[in-house]
């Protein structure tokens, strides 16, 4: 697989260790674009807030979704078997893939067996995770992503920067340029309507000529053997209906027990993802269409091992709505590519180290631990707690850089000795007061590159306290009433 990973510009760094702060630097430095990106995603977050507010039972739904997912995971083997039985009975063919390589080989095998040269694809982060496109292209098969955002970045030979809004890092002008280069639109055109129309014409052609359609799966229903795909552009329907062969690729965590559970997730998904009450198209596939074939590929690719770990199990609840990215103040300012992984943002920072801890060890630290992701997540994944758990795990595995570990060791030693702490504090404050500004605010002091250090007081609190006649006298600022005693739990 590795040789395919380097085919895309943005993924060339994927095998080496990625340092998030370094990767984020250019994105943050471009102030104008960074602020625009931040604002665009915050706009989506606010839309989501309004939609979530419109449902009085929002928190109840989240709890229900979380418990349904937990229940499914606890009984995953049974539900997967039930799904296979029902899907097969409905006429679909079910395949099992242990990892990305197997998944790709299965898909290629199906395409070759049916003499397929041209494929249209829609809504699949999983195939992105498995790097299916370069794999198929290397076999001479044409793969066209049909979601507008996906198509834009495919033309630009870049990875997606967001799981729901894959081209959110690009502005209208960038898209205009890309389309001018690849689709022959007018130079300098940036009118979204004009550009969308150009893409539509270009894609129509691809749809009509495709011999197979590959789609992702948002939800697979054990009870019926059906799969549901949610899109706003309707392209998954076209891709699955025009060509005779439909291959649906899904991670094993996409399962839900019953058809009746679907409503919970459909209500949460669109609201959390884009702030819509429902996605424009929620297409349900139960068996192949007349004269066609439906193949469903169930992929593990590391999911079982996440399921086996108590601290991270709930990460499998993820329905890939992207809300945690939209709300994440770090993601909004550092951009999706800075995570150098297929799924960026908070959930990506939990999932990526599970796939390769060493490679993604900086991601759990790309987080201020504000906890907004945990509260926004429609399936209640305790994301920021999992990121904290990853930090401990990285520490345990000895993967913490010396620059992180050493200062902590020194500080811990100091904090264990209150007298020494007081003395060191005194020295620190004294130095800050007497040393020239240029010396305390040098380039080696990362804090002070853009920030002033606090003004150092002469006395610490502890020495002030010692100098007082404590705790005998009190210093009331408002007149206290000595008669009334405080009451508990007023």
């Amino acid at each position: 697989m590795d040789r395919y990973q380097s085919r895309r510009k943005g993924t060339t760094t994927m095998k080496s260790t990625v340092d998030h702060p370094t990767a984020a630097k250019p994105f943050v430095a471009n102030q104008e674009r960074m602020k625009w990106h931040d604002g665009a995603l915050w706009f989506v977050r606010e839309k989501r807030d309004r939609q979530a507010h419109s449902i009085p039972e929002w928190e109840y739904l989240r709890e229900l979704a979380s418990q349904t997912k937990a229940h499914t995971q606890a009984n995953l083997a049974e539900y997967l078997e039930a799904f296979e039985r029902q899907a097969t009975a409905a006429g679909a063919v079910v395949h099992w893939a242990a990892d990305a390589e197997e998944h790709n080989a299965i898909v290629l095998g199906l395409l070759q067996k049916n003499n397929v040269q041209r494929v249209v694809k829609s809504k699949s982060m999983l195939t992105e995770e498995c790097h299916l496109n370069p794999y198929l292209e290397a076999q001479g098969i044409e793969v066209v992503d049909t979601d507008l955002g996906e198509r834009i970045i495919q033309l630009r030979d870049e990875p997606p920067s967001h799981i729901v809004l894959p081209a959110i890092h690009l502005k209208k002008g960038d898209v205009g340029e890309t389309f001018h280069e690849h689709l022959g639109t007018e130079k300098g055109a940036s009118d979204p309507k004009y550009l969308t129309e150009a893409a539509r014409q270009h894609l129509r052609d691809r749809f009509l000529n495709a011999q197979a359609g590959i789609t992702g799966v948002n939800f697979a229903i054990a009870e019926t053997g059906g799969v549901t795909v949610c899109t706003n552009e309707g392209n998954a329907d076209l891709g699955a209906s025009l060509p005779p062969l439909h291959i649906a690729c899904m991670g094993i965590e996409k399962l839900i027990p019953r058809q009746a559970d679907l409503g919970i997730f459909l209500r949460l998904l669109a609201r959390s993802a884009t702030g819509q009450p429902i996605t424009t198209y929620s297409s349900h596939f139960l068996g192949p269409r007349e004269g066609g074939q439906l193949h469903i590929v169930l992929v593990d690719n590391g999911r079982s091992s996440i399921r086996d770990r108590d601290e991270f199990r709930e990460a499998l609840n993820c329905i890939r709505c992207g809300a945690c990215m939209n709300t994440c103040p770090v993601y909004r300012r550092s951009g999706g590519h800075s995570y150098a992984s297929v799924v960026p943002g908070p959930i990506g920072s939990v999932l990526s180290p599970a796939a390769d801890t060493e490679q993604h060890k900086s991601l759990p630290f790309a987080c201020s631990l504000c906890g907004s992701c945990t509260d926004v997540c429609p399936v209640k994944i305790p994301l920021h707690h999992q990121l904290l758990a990853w930090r401990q795990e990285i520490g345990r595995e000895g993967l913490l850089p010396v620059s992180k570990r050493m200062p902590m060791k020194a500080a811990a030693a100091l904090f264990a000795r209150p007298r020494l702490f007081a003395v060191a504090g005194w020295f620190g404050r004294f130095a800050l007061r007497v040393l020239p500004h240029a010396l305390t605010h040098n380039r080696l002091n990362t804090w002070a590159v853009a920030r002033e250090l606090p003004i150092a007081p002469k006395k610490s609190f502890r020495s002030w306290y010692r100098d007082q006649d404590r705790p005998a006298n009190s210093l009331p600022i408002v007149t206290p009433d000595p008669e009334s005693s405080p009451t508990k739990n007023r």
Partner: protein
Amino acid sequence: MHIGLFVPCYVDQFYPDVAVATLELLESCGMQVEFPSAQTCCGQPMANTGCAEMAVPLAERFVEIFQPYDFVVCPSGSCTAMVVHHYDHLFSGEKRAAFEAVRDKTLELSQFLERYVPAEKLNFPSFPHRVGLHQSCHGLRELRIGACSERMVTGNDSVGELLERVPDLTRVTLKRADECCGFGGTFAVAEADVSVAMGLSRVADHAAADAEVIVAGDMSCLMHMQGLMRRDGSPLRVMHLAQLLCGRSIDINHDAKEQRR
């Protein structure tokens, strides 16, 4: 009530008046307060950096030191959250019971005032200024001292309620009511670029709302924003909630004479 004052290490060293103000405030409400000087740091920097094992001895000391008090009160949501939520897996066996006892009586300042001080005792001096409230993340989303914008629940708002009791104070309305300021402990250094970008937009939100002072229950967030504002020569001030409630001047953390740039 006998209260053990839990003073975050950086407050002790850099913002002593925040601790003094907390002490005054609690005493003015009739509490008996003591600062056990054996305390240093709760261990949060180590735990958040992935070195939880280094935080264990500090956590154990903490429990030992604060055992004798009826309550442990701290002018920081973040340090309180460390004890209340993140000490949990650091204790096992015999030491567990003592830890749980201390954990259950450890409260952030506004939480304590709201729960254990009768309303008629909460009389604060006038503060005739336009105030922007920075809701610190750990107080908000770990201790739940306010209702955060992501969750569709109407929660309590202990800081907001305290501010409401201050005569002549005007609260300004922010565009992003509870966005993170980007401090995040060691995050501020490890991810300095992003941290600074977050801080600047937080400050800009307050400035755009025409605030004179940014008030928070965590001095760490304020230290970070103050650092950015000093660099930019912004006229905005920062104050800890305790300082405001004690009637300190708006310039308390910002002595112009000592300002170096």
